[in-house]
């Protein structure tokens, strides 16, 4: 019993450390990729190739003046940044990095993921509300409706996968893809999942709650120092986690593509695939303009919802009659 507890704690610490490493270097990757796309270099001066830049950024944010808006709603003002980080960290509990490397193999992992990750909307809503300012409020309102719309699409696209696999356990989902990745069986679900995931993450082109050119900073306009950093920590943690989930659901988790290079350990493959999806998100951000709020909502309800529902219907037929 004690052994299990110690082992679990050790696993949690390792997973957490790895996640934080990826979050920190996610910002570095973001800036390097942006630099490459924009015909410039990106961070260069902190350490070799600018590799210490995330540390410098973290330090800088720590020592910035911590402003509390005088007329803010204090409890919500303090809770919001915490809520931004916690859900992303909770999700790592169910991510299988390799066949036997995971914190826990929950049999309702997918439901757990949906439930926990949808909590992060509260961070943005409360953050927007608490600042007692109009720009964050608009950002908060936008994010509330955006989350509701895209959470549905996200959930339904996962349902497509779960119907084929017949299990909510992420480990089972990956094991099911041993011969053929889910992305080839459910391409539409994959596309819907990616769009919804980017929208859920408030990433460009769907970064409307933030929309710096319209809403200044959106929900985090009134935050500074580490409170501000927490929102960003949450955003990047969510990005990493979402990429990891997408890898498990659609890209065959730890399996090598078409069984080539089988001597490379599974978790390396897992990390490579996660990073590819992460890179895809960066690529999109630095290439596309931002859509407008009403257009975003229109896309969710008028395009993605019917498509994904139809996909479920077709999958249902196949599952029922195809066997």
């Amino acid at each position, binding site marked *: 019993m004690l052994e299990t507890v110690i082992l679990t704690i050790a696993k949690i610490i390792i997973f957490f450390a790895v996640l934080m490493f990826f979050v920190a270097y996610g910002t570095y990757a973001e800036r390097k990729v*942006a630099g490459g*796309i*924009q*015909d*410039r270099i990106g961070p260069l001066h902190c350490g070799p190739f600018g590799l210490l830049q995330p540390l410098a950024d973290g330090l800088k944010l720590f020592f910035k003046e911590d402003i509390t808006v005088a007329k803010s709603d204090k409890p919500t003002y303090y809770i919001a940044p915490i809520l931004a980080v916690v859900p992303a960290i909770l999700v790592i509990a169910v991510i299988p990095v390799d066949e036997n490397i995971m914190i826990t193999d929950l049999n309702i992992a997918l439901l757990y993921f949906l439930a926990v990750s949808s909590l992060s909307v509260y961070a943005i809503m409360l953050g927007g509300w608490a600042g007692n300012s*109009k*720009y964050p409020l*608009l950002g908060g309102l*936008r994010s509330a409706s955006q989350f509701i719309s895209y959470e549905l699409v996200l959930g339904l696209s996962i349902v497509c996968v779960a119907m084929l696999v017949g299990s909510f356990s992420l480990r089972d989902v990956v094991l099911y893809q041993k011969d053929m990745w889910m992305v080839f069986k459910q391409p539409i679900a994959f596309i819907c999942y990616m769009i919804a995931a980017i929208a859920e993450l408030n990433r*460009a*082109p769907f*970064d409307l709650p933030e*929309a*710096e*050119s*319209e*809403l*200044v900073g959106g929900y985090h306009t009134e935050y500074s120092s580490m409170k501000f950093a927490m929102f960003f920590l949450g955003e990047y943690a969510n990005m990493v986690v979402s990429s990891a989930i997408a890898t498990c659901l659609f890209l065959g988790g730890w399996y090598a593509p078409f069984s080539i290079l089988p001597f490379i350990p599974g978790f390396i493959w897992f990390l490579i695939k996660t990073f590819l999806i992460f890179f895809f998100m960066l690529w999109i951000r*630095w*290439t*596309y*303009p*931002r*859509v*407008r*709020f*009403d*257009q975003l909502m229109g896309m969710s309800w008028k395009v993605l919802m019917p498509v994904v529902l139809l996909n479920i219907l077709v999958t249902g037929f196949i599952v029922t009659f195809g066997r």
Partner: protein
Amino acid sequence: MGIFESLKARFGEAIGDAREFRGEETIYVSKEYLKNICLWLRDVKGFNFLVDLCGVDRGVGKTDRFEVVYLLRNMDTREQVRLKVRIRDGERVDTVSDVWPTANWHEREVYDMFGIEFEGHSNLERLYLPDDYEGFPLRKDYPVRGDTNRIFYEGGAKTKYKPKRNDTTILNMGPQHPSTHGVLRVILELEGETIVDACPIVGYLHRGTEKLAEQKTYFQVLPLTDRLDYLAPPSNNLAYILAVEKLLGIEPPARAKYIRVIMTELARIASHLIWLGTHAMDIGAATVFLYTFREREYIYELWEMVAGARFHQSYFRIGGVKEDLPEEFIPALKKFVDTFPRKIDEYEGLLTNNKIWRVRTEGVAVLSKEDAIRYGVTGPILRGSGVKWDLRKAYPYSGYEEFRFEIPVGEVGDTFSRYLVRLEEMRQSREILKQAVEKLPDGPIKFEPGKYSFPDPEEVKGSRANIEALIHQFKQVIEGVKPPVGEVYQAVEAPKGELGFYIVSDGSEKPYRMRIRSPSLINLQALPLLVRGHKVADVVTAIGSIDIVLGEVDK
């Protein structure tokens, strides 16, 4: 029959005398009939465009102290006429803002600067200065440094805006906001995210350029003009220098004209590049911004070669330009001309057929042809609305008649049309540059150096020193040029629209009155029209699409 004769025949006694100076006709009219005359000119004579409206203080103690000056244009026949109304201190003039809506802000500015009130104006408030400011700065008896014993304004934001409905939210955008392109403030009345009304408030960067110009010699005014549209300083320099040259009645040599064209067309490209980058960034495409800055940097290097300065060059001189082009300039310019089309294709590759870009710009902030003319809008916005109007073709200046180029015209008048118009303008500017490089004539670069501008330094104290040049140098420093008594209006097609200088000379070495018709200010007036009924995000699109520069808006 000229305008004066037909006006005289129609209105008789109400028409005073007419004067002509440098081909510009000025007609004095009585203030009682002003509105009727304006309506008649607009409806019968086709003067559909109010170019400019400004005030002139003729000096304390004159019987009719103030003049209100109206510059009208018939866009079909290209006729221009200047109307003048003389009034005593404290008299009121009828508003013409219901004849030409563009007069609204003009009249507010006149009220702000001279204290002349307009009868029937819908909201006669100060345009630039704060509400509780005392005094009218452009009056001749107002000290140039202000009254230093009093503190005029202690700050604090006042919202003059009264909501139209009681179930709306007021959102204050600016003066500190990432997408207002400077210290512009827009008060938005929102219903959810939909805009019920918008109210732009300007004046946060007001520096009193017009007042300052009255204190300086003609040559000393030149650097002030750099600071108007600081993204295209050569255009401002050109407009001002051409106005002074028109006043003096001189013409620069051909080479100087070509050099000026090269500099101003580079300015157009540089300004449009900034516009494209920031506009795309406002809509969320951050990458284009970095691309356009790369090419703009190259233009700045070119400018540095020629003028020694990157930003505020003040390179043009009365009667020519300061120095000849350096040897390395033409090859560098050729390289730019050769490579630039590929760069525009690159921007287009990122934006033009991008689905998101299209839905964000098509049908957004539409300005109809009629409204564009009524609101006095000029430049790419006017052309985007489908009016084929370009001052370089309509009233060619600085040798533009020798170049072949097209005027791009939009169809719909939405943000996307204006985007296409500006992109095509960059291509046309490159075409002009190409021709200018090919045809660049040799010869002098100044008209009678020494008489209108400083003589060559070599002739003053160098190897070719002579007493003649020394006297010229002395005279230039002490008094500068002295144009004859008169008044001129000279406009150029600046990147943002029609930039005009109206200069009144009393025969001294300083302008008696210098009025700047800044395109950004007048184009901005149409903003509420563009955004009503759209979403918050579209305000940012509309502001970016109007392409304002606050240095020019606030003068």
